[in-house]
Protein backbone atom coordinates (compact mmCIF):
# COMPACT_ATOMS: atom_id res chain seq x y z
CA UNK A 1 0.00 0.00 0.00
CA UNK A 2 2.60 2.51 1.10
CA UNK A 3 4.71 1.64 -1.88
CA UNK A 4 1.99 2.42 -4.35
CA UNK A 5 0.91 5.74 -2.90
CA UNK A 6 3.59 8.03 -4.34
CA UNK A 7 3.06 6.52 -7.76
CA UNK A 8 -0.62 7.25 -7.48
CA UNK A 9 -0.01 10.80 -6.42
CA UNK A 10 2.50 11.36 -9.16
CA UNK A 11 0.08 9.97 -11.73
CA UNK A 12 -2.67 12.21 -10.44
CA UNK A 13 -0.38 15.21 -10.69
CA UNK A 14 0.60 14.39 -14.24
CA UNK A 15 -3.03 13.91 -15.17
CA UNK A 16 -3.89 17.28 -13.71
CA UNK A 17 -1.10 19.02 -15.60
CA UNK A 18 -2.21 17.33 -18.80
CA UNK A 19 -5.78 18.42 -18.16
CA UNK A 20 -4.66 22.01 -17.68
CA UNK A 21 -2.62 21.90 -20.85
CA UNK A 22 -5.34 20.11 -22.82
CA UNK A 23 -6.67 23.21 -24.65
CA UNK A 24 -3.27 23.56 -26.29
CA UNK A 25 -2.84 19.86 -26.95
CA UNK A 26 -6.18 18.80 -28.35
CA UNK A 27 -8.25 19.66 -31.38
CA UNK A 28 -11.32 21.75 -30.73
CA UNK A 29 -13.51 18.73 -31.16
CA UNK A 30 -11.56 16.55 -28.78
CA UNK A 31 -11.37 19.35 -26.26
CA UNK A 32 -15.12 19.64 -26.41
CA UNK A 33 -15.36 15.91 -25.80
CA UNK A 34 -12.97 16.13 -22.90
CA UNK A 35 -15.00 18.94 -21.40
CA UNK A 36 -18.22 16.94 -21.74
CA UNK A 37 -16.73 13.85 -20.24
CA UNK A 38 -15.12 15.71 -17.38
CA UNK A 39 -18.56 17.07 -16.66
CA UNK A 40 -19.85 13.51 -16.64
CA UNK A 41 -17.17 12.45 -14.21
CA UNK A 42 -18.92 14.48 -11.52
CA UNK A 43 -21.82 12.07 -11.85
CA UNK A 44 -19.46 9.13 -11.54
CA UNK A 45 -17.93 10.58 -8.39
CA UNK A 46 -21.37 10.97 -6.92
CA UNK A 47 -21.91 7.28 -7.56
CA UNK A 48 -18.72 6.41 -5.73
CA UNK A 49 -20.13 8.19 -2.74
CA UNK A 50 -23.51 6.52 -2.73
CA UNK A 51 -22.75 3.17 -4.27
CA UNK A 52 -19.18 2.44 -3.31
CA UNK A 53 -19.26 3.90 0.15
CA UNK A 54 -22.94 3.92 0.98
CA UNK A 55 -23.92 0.67 -0.74
CA UNK A 56 -26.85 2.43 -2.40
CA UNK A 57 -27.07 1.63 -6.08
CA UNK A 58 -29.04 4.28 -7.86
CA UNK A 59 -30.21 3.49 -11.35
CA UNK A 60 -31.89 6.85 -11.53
CA UNK A 61 -29.09 9.37 -11.53
CA UNK A 62 -30.39 10.53 -14.88
CA UNK A 63 -33.17 12.29 -13.00
CA UNK A 64 -30.74 14.58 -11.22
CA UNK A 65 -28.61 14.91 -14.29
CA UNK A 66 -31.69 16.03 -16.14
CA UNK A 67 -32.85 18.40 -13.42
CA UNK A 68 -29.51 20.18 -13.50
CA UNK A 69 -29.38 20.14 -17.27
CA UNK A 70 -32.93 21.33 -17.76
CA UNK A 71 -32.69 24.03 -15.11
CA UNK A 72 -29.81 25.59 -16.96
CA UNK A 73 -31.22 24.90 -20.41
CA UNK A 74 -34.48 26.63 -19.51
CA UNK A 75 -32.54 29.70 -18.60
CA UNK A 76 -30.50 29.50 -21.78
CA UNK A 77 -33.67 29.28 -23.84
CA UNK A 78 -35.13 32.33 -22.12
CA UNK A 79 -31.90 34.27 -22.36
CA UNK A 80 -32.12 34.21 -26.12
CA UNK A 81 -35.62 35.69 -26.24
CA UNK A 82 -37.00 39.16 -26.44
CA UNK A 83 -39.44 40.35 -23.77
CA UNK A 84 -42.80 38.62 -24.03
CA UNK A 85 -41.57 36.08 -26.55
CA UNK A 86 -42.09 32.37 -26.00
CA UNK A 87 -39.50 29.66 -26.57
CA UNK A 88 -39.92 28.20 -30.06
CA UNK A 89 -41.17 24.80 -28.95
CA UNK A 90 -43.97 26.32 -26.89
CA UNK A 91 -45.26 28.02 -29.98
CA UNK A 92 -45.44 24.90 -32.09
CA UNK A 93 -46.85 22.92 -29.18
CA UNK A 94 -49.64 25.40 -28.74
CA UNK A 95 -48.58 26.63 -25.30
CA UNK A 96 -49.85 30.16 -24.99
CA UNK A 97 -48.21 31.60 -21.91
CA UNK A 98 -44.91 31.03 -20.20
CA UNK A 99 -45.51 28.74 -17.20
CA UNK A 100 -44.61 30.41 -13.90
CA UNK A 101 -41.84 27.97 -13.10
CA UNK A 102 -40.11 28.87 -16.29
CA UNK A 103 -39.88 32.50 -15.30
CA UNK A 104 -38.11 31.48 -12.10
CA UNK A 105 -34.90 30.85 -14.00
CA UNK A 106 -35.03 34.01 -16.01
CA UNK A 107 -32.05 35.45 -14.17
CA UNK A 108 -28.79 33.57 -14.65
CA UNK A 109 -28.15 33.64 -10.92
CA UNK A 110 -31.47 32.03 -10.25
CA UNK A 111 -30.64 29.43 -12.86
CA UNK A 112 -27.33 28.57 -11.25
CA UNK A 113 -29.07 28.43 -7.90
CA UNK A 114 -31.68 26.12 -9.38
CA UNK A 115 -28.99 23.85 -10.81
CA UNK A 116 -27.53 23.51 -7.35
CA UNK A 117 -30.66 23.46 -5.24
CA UNK A 118 -33.30 21.58 -7.20
CA UNK A 119 -31.49 18.26 -7.66
CA UNK A 120 -30.10 18.39 -4.15
CA UNK A 121 -33.43 19.13 -2.56
CA UNK A 122 -35.25 16.52 -4.61
CA UNK A 123 -32.54 13.98 -3.96
CA UNK A 124 -32.69 14.64 -0.25
CA UNK A 125 -36.45 14.46 -0.17
CA UNK A 126 -36.59 11.26 -2.14
CA UNK A 127 -33.83 9.61 -0.18
CA UNK A 128 -35.44 10.61 3.05
CA UNK A 129 -38.79 9.23 2.04
CA UNK A 130 -37.31 5.93 0.93
CA UNK A 131 -34.62 5.33 3.53
CA UNK A 132 -36.90 6.35 6.33
CA UNK A 133 -38.99 3.38 5.32
CA UNK A 134 -35.85 1.23 5.39
CA UNK A 135 -35.96 0.35 1.74
CA UNK A 136 -32.58 -0.46 0.33
CA UNK A 137 -30.51 -2.68 -1.89
CA UNK A 138 -32.09 -4.02 -5.00
CA UNK A 139 -35.38 -2.42 -4.07
CA UNK A 140 -33.84 0.99 -4.07
CA UNK A 141 -32.09 0.35 -7.36
CA UNK A 142 -35.31 -0.65 -9.04
CA UNK A 143 -37.32 2.19 -7.59
CA UNK A 144 -34.81 4.70 -8.83
CA UNK A 145 -34.85 3.02 -12.20
CA UNK A 146 -38.59 3.44 -12.31
CA UNK A 147 -38.15 7.07 -11.38
CA UNK A 148 -35.79 7.58 -14.27
CA UNK A 149 -38.35 6.07 -16.59
CA UNK A 150 -41.12 8.18 -15.09
CA UNK A 151 -39.05 11.32 -15.38
CA UNK A 152 -38.13 10.72 -18.99
CA UNK A 153 -41.70 9.79 -19.89
CA UNK A 154 -42.98 12.89 -18.16
CA UNK A 155 -40.54 15.12 -20.00
CA UNK A 156 -41.59 13.61 -23.28
CA UNK A 157 -45.29 13.76 -22.62
CA UNK A 158 -45.32 17.38 -21.48
CA UNK A 159 -43.94 18.68 -24.72
CA UNK A 160 -45.51 22.10 -24.42
CA UNK A 161 -43.71 22.70 -21.15
CA UNK A 162 -40.48 20.77 -21.55
CA UNK A 163 -39.73 20.60 -25.23
CA UNK A 164 -40.75 16.95 -25.22
CA UNK A 165 -38.72 14.33 -26.97
CA UNK A 166 -36.59 16.97 -28.69
CA UNK A 167 -35.48 18.48 -25.45
CA UNK A 168 -34.04 21.96 -25.34
CA UNK A 169 -31.35 23.09 -27.68
CA UNK A 170 -30.00 26.10 -29.51
CA UNK A 171 -28.46 28.31 -26.82
CA UNK A 172 -26.83 31.65 -27.37
CA UNK A 173 -25.65 33.42 -24.24
CA UNK A 174 -24.89 32.76 -20.60
CA UNK A 175 -24.26 35.66 -18.20
CA UNK A 176 -24.05 37.79 -21.31
CA UNK A 177 -21.20 35.76 -22.78
CA UNK A 178 -21.65 34.45 -26.28
CA UNK A 179 -21.55 30.69 -26.04
CA UNK A 180 -20.36 30.39 -29.61
CA UNK A 181 -17.08 32.17 -29.01
CA UNK A 182 -13.97 30.03 -28.56
CA UNK A 183 -12.95 32.09 -25.52
CA UNK A 184 -16.20 31.21 -23.78
CA UNK A 185 -15.69 27.58 -24.61
CA UNK A 186 -12.23 27.70 -23.14
CA UNK A 187 -13.43 29.38 -19.97
CA UNK A 188 -16.16 26.80 -19.60
CA UNK A 189 -13.61 24.05 -19.94
CA UNK A 190 -11.58 25.43 -17.08
CA UNK A 191 -14.64 25.98 -14.96
CA UNK A 192 -15.54 22.35 -15.52
CA UNK A 193 -12.05 21.20 -14.65
CA UNK A 194 -12.03 23.33 -11.51
CA UNK A 195 -15.36 21.92 -10.41
CA UNK A 196 -14.15 18.37 -10.96
CA UNK A 197 -11.06 19.01 -8.86
CA UNK A 198 -13.16 20.70 -6.21
CA UNK A 199 -15.59 17.79 -6.24
CA UNK A 200 -12.74 15.36 -5.84
CA UNK A 201 -11.19 17.18 -2.92
CA UNK A 202 -14.54 17.81 -1.28
CA UNK A 203 -15.52 14.16 -1.45
CA UNK A 204 -12.10 13.09 -0.21
CA UNK A 205 -12.57 15.22 2.82
CA UNK A 206 -16.11 14.01 3.37
CA UNK A 207 -15.17 10.35 3.18
CA UNK A 208 -12.22 10.74 5.50
CA UNK A 209 -14.35 12.47 8.11
CA UNK A 210 -16.34 10.67 10.74
CA UNK A 211 -19.25 11.02 8.41
CA UNK A 212 -17.52 8.66 6.01
CA UNK A 213 -17.25 5.98 8.65
CA UNK A 214 -20.82 6.31 9.71
CA UNK A 215 -21.92 6.10 6.11
CA UNK A 216 -19.95 2.89 5.69
CA UNK A 217 -21.41 1.62 8.94
CA UNK A 218 -24.93 2.28 7.72
CA UNK A 219 -24.16 0.42 4.52
CA UNK A 220 -24.58 -3.00 6.06
CA UNK A 221 -25.25 -2.31 9.69
CA UNK A 222 -28.18 0.05 9.62
CA UNK A 223 -30.02 -1.83 12.34
CA UNK A 224 -26.97 -2.15 14.51
CA UNK A 225 -26.51 1.60 14.22
CA UNK A 226 -30.01 2.24 15.37
CA UNK A 227 -29.36 0.22 18.49
CA UNK A 228 -26.25 2.22 19.15
CA UNK A 229 -28.37 5.32 19.15
CA UNK A 230 -27.68 6.51 15.65
CA UNK A 231 -30.33 7.13 13.10
CA UNK A 232 -28.79 5.77 9.90
CA UNK A 233 -31.18 7.63 7.62
CA UNK A 234 -29.49 11.06 7.62
CA UNK A 235 -26.15 9.63 6.57
CA UNK A 236 -27.66 8.01 3.55
CA UNK A 237 -29.76 11.05 2.81
CA UNK A 238 -26.72 13.28 2.91
CA UNK A 239 -24.81 10.96 0.63
CA UNK A 240 -27.67 10.84 -1.79
CA UNK A 241 -28.20 14.58 -1.73
CA UNK A 242 -24.52 15.26 -2.30
CA UNK A 243 -24.49 12.81 -5.18
CA UNK A 244 -27.59 14.48 -6.57
CA UNK A 245 -25.87 17.84 -6.30
CA UNK A 246 -22.83 16.59 -8.16
CA UNK A 247 -25.00 14.92 -10.75
CA UNK A 248 -27.07 18.04 -11.23
CA UNK A 249 -23.92 20.09 -11.77
CA UNK A 250 -22.72 17.42 -14.10
CA UNK A 251 -25.91 17.68 -16.11
CA UNK A 252 -25.75 21.45 -16.31
CA UNK A 253 -22.15 21.46 -17.43
CA UNK A 254 -22.80 18.71 -19.93
CA UNK A 255 -25.71 20.65 -21.35
CA UNK A 256 -23.45 23.65 -21.84
CA UNK A 257 -20.79 21.65 -23.61
CA UNK A 258 -23.13 19.51 -25.67
CA UNK A 259 -25.54 22.27 -26.56
CA UNK A 260 -28.56 20.11 -25.92
CA UNK A 261 -30.44 18.47 -23.13
CA UNK A 262 -33.13 15.94 -23.90
CA UNK A 263 -34.98 13.01 -22.38
CA UNK A 264 -32.52 10.74 -24.16
CA UNK A 265 -29.95 11.79 -21.56
CA UNK A 266 -31.99 11.11 -18.47
CA UNK A 267 -33.85 7.85 -18.92
CA UNK A 268 -33.22 4.27 -17.93
CA UNK A 269 -30.40 3.49 -20.31
CA UNK A 270 -28.27 6.60 -19.72
CA UNK A 271 -28.76 6.20 -15.99
CA UNK A 272 -27.34 2.71 -16.11
CA UNK A 273 -24.48 3.87 -18.25
CA UNK A 274 -23.62 6.31 -15.50
CA UNK A 275 -23.22 3.43 -13.12
CA UNK A 276 -20.90 1.70 -15.51
CA UNK A 277 -18.53 4.65 -15.48
CA UNK A 278 -18.14 4.22 -11.76
CA UNK A 279 -17.97 0.45 -12.04
CA UNK A 280 -15.27 0.51 -14.67
CA UNK A 281 -13.25 3.10 -12.83
CA UNK A 282 -13.72 1.48 -9.46
CA UNK A 283 -16.70 2.04 -7.28
CA UNK A 284 -14.58 2.85 -4.29
CA UNK A 285 -12.18 5.20 -5.96
CA UNK A 286 -12.88 8.82 -6.81
CA UNK A 287 -9.98 9.08 -9.20
CA UNK A 288 -11.11 5.79 -10.67
CA UNK A 289 -14.54 7.26 -11.27
CA UNK A 290 -13.10 10.16 -13.21
CA UNK A 291 -10.92 7.82 -15.21
CA UNK A 292 -13.90 5.53 -15.82
CA UNK A 293 -16.12 8.33 -17.08
CA UNK A 294 -13.42 9.57 -19.43
CA UNK A 295 -12.37 6.16 -20.69
CA UNK A 296 -15.80 4.73 -21.31
CA UNK A 297 -17.00 7.81 -23.08
CA UNK A 298 -13.94 8.28 -25.21
CA UNK A 299 -14.08 4.61 -26.09
CA UNK A 300 -17.72 4.99 -26.99
CA UNK A 301 -16.99 7.94 -29.21
CA UNK A 302 -14.07 6.32 -30.96
CA UNK A 303 -15.43 2.81 -31.24
CA UNK A 304 -18.88 3.82 -32.32
CA UNK A 305 -17.31 5.97 -35.00
CA UNK A 306 -15.25 3.14 -36.33
CA UNK A 307 -17.70 0.30 -35.88
CA UNK A 308 -21.13 1.30 -34.68
CA UNK A 309 -22.42 -2.26 -34.48
CA UNK A 310 -19.56 -3.31 -32.31
CA UNK A 311 -20.08 -0.69 -29.67
CA UNK A 312 -23.04 -2.38 -28.04
CA UNK A 313 -21.22 -5.68 -27.86
CA UNK A 314 -18.28 -3.80 -26.39
CA UNK A 315 -20.37 -1.99 -23.84
CA UNK A 316 -22.09 -5.20 -22.86
CA UNK A 317 -18.78 -6.94 -22.46
CA UNK A 318 -17.51 -4.02 -20.41
CA UNK A 319 -20.39 -4.39 -17.97
CA UNK A 320 -19.72 -8.07 -17.58
CA UNK A 321 -15.98 -7.66 -17.28
CA UNK A 322 -16.34 -4.83 -14.82
CA UNK A 323 -18.08 -6.99 -12.29
CA UNK A 324 -16.57 -10.38 -12.94
CA UNK A 325 -12.94 -9.71 -13.69
CA UNK A 326 -12.50 -6.33 -12.10
CA UNK A 327 -14.98 -5.89 -9.28
CA UNK A 328 -12.94 -3.03 -7.99
CA UNK A 329 -12.69 -1.50 -11.43
CA UNK A 330 -9.53 -0.06 -12.88
CA UNK A 331 -8.65 1.29 -9.47
CA UNK A 332 -8.49 -2.32 -8.31
CA UNK A 333 -5.49 -2.81 -10.53
CA UNK A 334 -3.57 -0.36 -8.42
CA UNK A 335 -5.07 -1.10 -5.03
CA UNK A 336 -3.45 -2.91 -2.13
CA UNK A 337 -4.25 -6.35 -3.48
CA UNK A 338 -4.01 -5.85 -7.18
CA UNK A 339 -3.74 -8.98 -9.30
CA UNK A 340 -0.20 -8.31 -10.40
CA UNK A 341 1.30 -8.82 -6.99
CA UNK A 342 3.70 -11.72 -6.71
CA UNK A 343 1.78 -13.15 -3.75
CA UNK A 344 -1.14 -14.04 -5.93
CA UNK A 345 1.00 -15.78 -8.44
CA UNK A 346 2.40 -17.82 -5.61
CA UNK A 347 -1.09 -18.85 -4.60
CA UNK A 348 -1.84 -20.04 -8.10
CA UNK A 349 1.30 -22.01 -8.03
CA UNK A 350 0.36 -23.58 -4.74
CA UNK A 351 -2.90 -24.71 -6.22
CA UNK A 352 -1.09 -26.22 -9.15
CA UNK A 353 1.20 -28.13 -6.82
CA UNK A 354 -1.78 -29.39 -4.94
CA UNK A 355 -3.44 -30.65 -8.08
CA UNK A 356 -0.31 -32.55 -8.88
CA UNK A 357 0.07 -33.96 -5.43
CA UNK A 358 -3.51 -35.13 -5.57
CA UNK A 359 -3.00 -37.26 -8.60
CA UNK A 360 0.32 -38.53 -7.32
CA UNK A 361 -0.47 -39.64 -3.80
CA UNK A 362 -3.68 -41.42 -3.01
CA UNK A 363 -3.53 -42.36 0.62
CA UNK A 364 -3.02 -45.93 1.56
CA UNK A 365 -6.00 -47.40 3.32
CA UNK A 366 -5.61 -47.56 7.06
CA UNK A 367 -2.64 -45.22 7.09
CA UNK A 368 -1.68 -44.66 10.68
CA UNK A 369 -2.10 -41.33 12.36
CA UNK A 370 1.05 -39.23 12.38
Amino acid sequence: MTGTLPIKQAATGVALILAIAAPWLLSAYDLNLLARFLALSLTAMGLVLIWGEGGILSLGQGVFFGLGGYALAMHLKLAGLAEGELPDFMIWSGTEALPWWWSLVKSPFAAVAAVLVVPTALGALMAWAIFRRRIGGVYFALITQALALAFATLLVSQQGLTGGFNGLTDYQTLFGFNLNLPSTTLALYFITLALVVAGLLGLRWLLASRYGKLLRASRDGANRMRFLGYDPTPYKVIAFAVAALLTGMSGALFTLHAGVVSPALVGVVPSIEMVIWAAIGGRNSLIGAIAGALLVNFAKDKISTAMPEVWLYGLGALFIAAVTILPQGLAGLFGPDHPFRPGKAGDLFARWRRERAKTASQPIAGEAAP
Partner: protein
Amino acid sequence: MTVPMLQLENVVVDFDGFKAIDDLSLTIESGSMTVVIGPNGAGKSTMCDSIIGRVRPASGRVLFHGAEIQAESEHAIVGRGICRKFQTPGVLVALSVIDNLAIAATRDRNWWACFSRKGEAEARARAEEILEQIGLTDRRDTLAGNLSHGEKQWLEIGMVVATDAELLLLDEPTAGMGASESSQTATLVRSLLGKHAVLVIDHDIDFVSQLGGHVVVLHQGRLLREGTLEQIRADEEVAAIYLGRAK
Protein backbone atom coordinates in the same frame (compact mmCIF):
# COMPACT_ATOMS: atom_id res chain seq x y z
CA MET B 1 -41.41 7.85 46.25
CA THR B 2 -39.17 8.18 43.22
CA VAL B 3 -40.12 6.65 39.92
CA PRO B 4 -38.17 3.50 39.11
CA MET B 5 -35.74 3.68 36.22
CA LEU B 6 -37.50 1.19 33.99
CA GLN B 7 -40.96 -0.13 34.29
CA LEU B 8 -42.81 -2.60 32.11
CA GLU B 9 -46.53 -2.33 32.71
CA ASN B 10 -48.71 -5.17 31.47
CA VAL B 11 -46.78 -5.47 28.27
CA VAL B 12 -48.19 -7.79 25.62
CA VAL B 13 -46.31 -8.65 22.45
CA ASP B 14 -48.32 -10.43 19.87
CA PHE B 15 -46.98 -12.20 16.79
CA ASP B 16 -49.94 -12.87 14.58
CA GLY B 17 -51.98 -14.14 17.47
CA PHE B 18 -49.15 -15.79 19.37
CA LYS B 19 -48.41 -13.93 22.59
CA ALA B 20 -44.65 -14.03 23.03
CA ILE B 21 -44.97 -11.64 25.98
CA ASP B 22 -48.16 -11.95 27.89
CA ASP B 23 -49.09 -9.26 30.37
CA LEU B 24 -45.64 -8.85 31.77
CA SER B 25 -44.81 -6.28 34.43
CA LEU B 26 -41.32 -5.72 35.70
CA THR B 27 -39.35 -3.00 37.41
CA ILE B 28 -35.66 -2.24 37.28
CA GLU B 29 -34.01 0.22 39.63
CA SER B 30 -31.01 2.37 38.84
CA GLY B 31 -27.70 0.70 39.38
CA SER B 32 -29.22 -2.69 39.97
CA MET B 33 -28.53 -6.10 38.53
CA THR B 34 -31.32 -8.23 37.13
CA VAL B 35 -30.82 -11.68 35.67
CA VAL B 36 -33.51 -13.11 33.46
CA ILE B 37 -33.61 -16.82 32.87
CA GLY B 38 -36.22 -19.09 31.42
CA PRO B 39 -36.69 -21.75 28.82
CA ASN B 40 -35.88 -21.17 25.20
CA GLY B 41 -38.82 -19.33 23.74
CA ALA B 42 -39.99 -17.93 27.06
CA GLY B 43 -39.89 -14.43 25.60
CA LYS B 44 -36.69 -13.14 27.17
CA SER B 45 -35.27 -11.71 23.97
CA THR B 46 -38.66 -10.43 22.98
CA MET B 47 -38.87 -8.58 26.26
CA CYS B 48 -35.61 -6.84 25.40
CA ASP B 49 -36.96 -6.18 21.94
CA SER B 50 -39.96 -4.45 23.40
CA ILE B 51 -37.83 -2.28 25.66
CA ILE B 52 -35.51 -1.22 22.91
CA GLY B 53 -38.17 -0.59 20.31
CA ARG B 54 -37.47 -3.50 18.02
CA VAL B 55 -40.95 -4.85 18.47
CA ARG B 56 -43.93 -2.77 19.50
CA PRO B 57 -46.12 -3.96 22.36
CA ALA B 58 -49.71 -4.63 21.39
CA SER B 59 -50.72 -3.20 24.71
CA GLY B 60 -49.13 -2.08 27.93
CA ARG B 61 -46.52 0.56 28.53
CA VAL B 62 -42.78 0.78 28.82
CA LEU B 63 -41.65 3.62 31.03
CA PHE B 64 -38.12 4.90 31.36
CA HIS B 65 -37.78 7.36 34.19
CA GLY B 66 -41.51 7.74 34.02
CA ALA B 67 -41.63 8.61 30.32
CA GLU B 68 -43.42 6.33 27.90
CA ILE B 69 -40.98 5.04 25.32
CA GLN B 70 -42.81 2.18 23.68
CA ALA B 71 -43.63 4.22 20.59
CA GLU B 72 -40.32 5.96 20.16
CA SER B 73 -37.89 5.16 17.40
CA GLU B 74 -35.05 2.81 18.24
CA HIS B 75 -32.31 5.36 18.15
CA ALA B 76 -34.28 7.76 20.27
CA ILE B 77 -34.71 5.09 22.94
CA VAL B 78 -31.00 4.39 22.86
CA GLY B 79 -30.44 8.10 23.08
CA ARG B 80 -32.30 8.10 26.39
CA GLY B 81 -29.73 5.75 27.83
CA ILE B 82 -30.64 2.14 27.09
CA CYS B 83 -28.38 -0.08 25.11
CA ARG B 84 -28.59 -3.68 24.17
CA LYS B 85 -26.42 -6.55 23.14
CA PHE B 86 -28.14 -8.96 20.78
CA GLN B 87 -28.30 -12.68 21.07
CA THR B 88 -26.82 -13.12 17.61
CA PRO B 89 -23.94 -10.72 17.68
CA GLY B 90 -24.36 -7.62 15.56
CA VAL B 91 -21.38 -5.45 14.84
CA LEU B 92 -20.63 -2.88 12.16
CA VAL B 93 -18.98 -5.26 9.77
CA ALA B 94 -17.51 -2.66 7.45
CA LEU B 95 -15.54 -0.91 10.16
CA SER B 96 -12.51 -1.89 12.18
CA VAL B 97 -12.83 -3.09 15.75
CA ILE B 98 -11.59 0.17 17.14
CA ASP B 99 -13.94 2.20 14.97
CA ASN B 100 -16.83 0.09 16.18
CA LEU B 101 -15.94 0.95 19.72
CA ALA B 102 -15.28 4.60 18.97
CA ILE B 103 -18.64 4.96 17.30
CA ALA B 104 -20.31 3.37 20.26
CA ALA B 105 -18.36 5.59 22.66
CA THR B 106 -19.29 8.81 20.88
CA ARG B 107 -21.62 10.84 23.04
CA ASP B 108 -23.20 13.14 20.52
CA ARG B 109 -25.00 10.84 18.15
CA ASN B 110 -26.80 13.49 16.15
CA TRP B 111 -25.96 13.28 12.51
CA TRP B 112 -24.65 16.81 12.29
CA ALA B 113 -22.11 16.04 14.98
CA CYS B 114 -20.22 13.78 12.62
CA PHE B 115 -18.79 16.79 10.88
CA SER B 116 -17.19 18.21 13.98
CA ARG B 117 -14.19 16.99 15.86
CA LYS B 118 -15.72 17.65 19.25
CA GLY B 119 -15.59 14.71 21.62
CA GLU B 120 -13.68 12.58 19.17
CA ALA B 121 -10.48 12.32 21.15
CA GLU B 122 -12.43 11.43 24.22
CA ALA B 123 -14.32 8.70 22.42
CA ARG B 124 -11.12 7.29 20.96
CA ALA B 125 -9.50 7.17 24.37
CA ARG B 126 -12.47 5.39 25.83
CA ALA B 127 -12.49 2.95 22.92
CA GLU B 128 -8.85 2.06 23.49
CA GLU B 129 -9.56 1.47 27.13
CA ILE B 130 -12.42 -0.89 26.39
CA LEU B 131 -10.39 -2.64 23.74
CA GLU B 132 -8.02 -3.65 26.53
CA GLN B 133 -10.83 -4.82 28.74
CA ILE B 134 -12.36 -7.09 26.16
CA GLY B 135 -9.01 -8.50 25.15
CA LEU B 136 -9.15 -7.65 21.49
CA THR B 137 -6.06 -5.42 21.40
CA ASP B 138 -4.37 -7.52 18.76
CA ARG B 139 -7.51 -7.29 16.66
CA ARG B 140 -7.68 -3.53 16.88
CA ASP B 141 -7.67 -2.82 13.14
CA THR B 142 -9.38 -5.97 11.90
CA LEU B 143 -12.68 -5.41 10.14
CA ALA B 144 -15.37 -6.45 12.57
CA GLY B 145 -16.94 -8.61 9.88
CA ASN B 146 -13.86 -10.82 9.91
CA LEU B 147 -13.97 -11.69 13.59
CA SER B 148 -14.88 -15.11 14.85
CA HIS B 149 -18.22 -15.64 16.50
CA GLY B 150 -16.87 -15.32 20.03
CA GLU B 151 -14.79 -12.32 19.18
CA LYS B 152 -17.82 -10.60 17.79
CA GLN B 153 -19.57 -11.43 21.02
CA TRP B 154 -16.81 -9.71 22.95
CA LEU B 155 -16.80 -6.75 20.67
CA GLU B 156 -20.50 -6.31 21.03
CA ILE B 157 -20.27 -6.38 24.78
CA GLY B 158 -17.55 -3.78 24.51
CA MET B 159 -19.69 -1.61 22.30
CA VAL B 160 -22.60 -1.76 24.65
CA VAL B 161 -20.37 -0.82 27.55
CA ALA B 162 -18.84 1.97 25.51
CA THR B 163 -22.16 3.66 25.03
CA ASP B 164 -22.12 4.29 28.75
CA ALA B 165 -25.88 3.84 28.77
CA GLU B 166 -27.69 3.92 32.06
CA LEU B 167 -29.37 0.62 31.40
CA LEU B 168 -27.54 -2.19 29.66
CA LEU B 169 -29.43 -5.17 28.30
CA LEU B 170 -27.15 -8.13 27.68
CA ASP B 171 -28.80 -10.97 25.80
CA GLU B 172 -26.75 -14.12 26.37
CA PRO B 173 -23.37 -12.45 26.62
CA THR B 174 -21.55 -15.72 27.31
CA ALA B 175 -23.02 -17.82 24.56
CA GLY B 176 -20.05 -19.41 22.86
CA MET B 177 -17.64 -18.59 25.62
CA GLY B 178 -15.69 -20.96 27.78
CA ALA B 179 -15.77 -21.03 31.53
CA SER B 180 -12.90 -18.65 32.12
CA GLU B 181 -14.17 -16.15 29.56
CA SER B 182 -17.52 -16.34 31.24
CA SER B 183 -16.06 -15.40 34.55
CA GLN B 184 -14.13 -12.57 32.93
CA THR B 185 -17.44 -11.37 31.58
CA ALA B 186 -18.99 -11.66 34.99
CA THR B 187 -16.24 -9.51 36.41
CA LEU B 188 -16.74 -6.97 33.69
CA VAL B 189 -20.46 -6.88 34.24
CA ARG B 190 -20.15 -6.55 38.00
CA SER B 191 -17.77 -3.64 37.58
CA LEU B 192 -20.49 -1.79 35.76
CA LEU B 193 -22.97 -1.95 38.58
CA GLY B 194 -23.83 1.13 40.53
CA LYS B 195 -23.19 3.48 37.70
CA HIS B 196 -25.23 1.36 35.31
CA ALA B 197 -28.19 -0.86 35.75
CA VAL B 198 -27.69 -4.19 33.99
CA LEU B 199 -30.17 -6.75 32.81
CA VAL B 200 -28.58 -10.02 31.79
CA ILE B 201 -30.19 -12.94 30.03
CA ASP B 202 -28.28 -16.17 30.15
CA HIS B 203 -28.62 -19.89 30.32
CA ASP B 204 -25.27 -20.50 32.00
CA ILE B 205 -26.15 -20.99 35.63
CA ASP B 206 -22.54 -20.80 36.78
CA PHE B 207 -22.24 -17.46 35.15
CA VAL B 208 -25.52 -16.35 36.67
CA SER B 209 -24.35 -17.32 40.10
CA GLN B 210 -21.18 -15.29 39.65
CA LEU B 211 -23.23 -12.25 38.82
CA GLY B 212 -25.34 -12.33 41.94
CA GLY B 213 -28.32 -10.09 41.58
CA HIS B 214 -32.02 -10.47 41.42
CA VAL B 215 -33.23 -13.38 39.31
CA VAL B 216 -36.40 -13.32 37.25
CA VAL B 217 -37.76 -16.42 35.58
CA LEU B 218 -39.89 -16.01 32.48
CA HIS B 219 -42.06 -18.76 31.13
CA GLN B 220 -44.44 -18.58 28.18
CA GLY B 221 -44.25 -14.83 28.13
CA ARG B 222 -45.16 -14.46 31.77
CA LEU B 223 -43.24 -13.88 34.93
CA LEU B 224 -42.98 -17.23 36.66
CA ARG B 225 -40.73 -16.57 39.69
CA GLU B 226 -38.59 -13.83 41.12
CA GLY B 227 -36.01 -13.96 43.85
CA THR B 228 -32.42 -14.77 44.65
CA LEU B 229 -30.68 -17.49 42.75
CA GLU B 230 -30.88 -19.76 45.78
CA GLN B 231 -34.63 -19.42 45.98
CA ILE B 232 -34.97 -20.06 42.31
CA ARG B 233 -32.78 -23.09 42.39
CA ALA B 234 -34.85 -24.53 45.10
CA ASP B 235 -38.02 -24.11 43.12
CA GLU B 236 -39.52 -27.33 41.87
CA GLU B 237 -41.33 -25.86 38.95
CA VAL B 238 -38.30 -24.02 37.66
CA ALA B 239 -36.34 -27.21 37.93
CA ALA B 240 -38.93 -29.04 35.92
CA ILE B 241 -39.28 -26.65 33.08
CA TYR B 242 -35.85 -25.21 32.94
CA LEU B 243 -32.96 -26.33 35.06
CA GLY B 244 -33.35 -30.05 34.91
CA ARG B 245 -30.43 -31.83 36.53
CA ALA B 246 -28.35 -28.66 36.45
CA LYS B 247 -29.82 -27.31 39.62
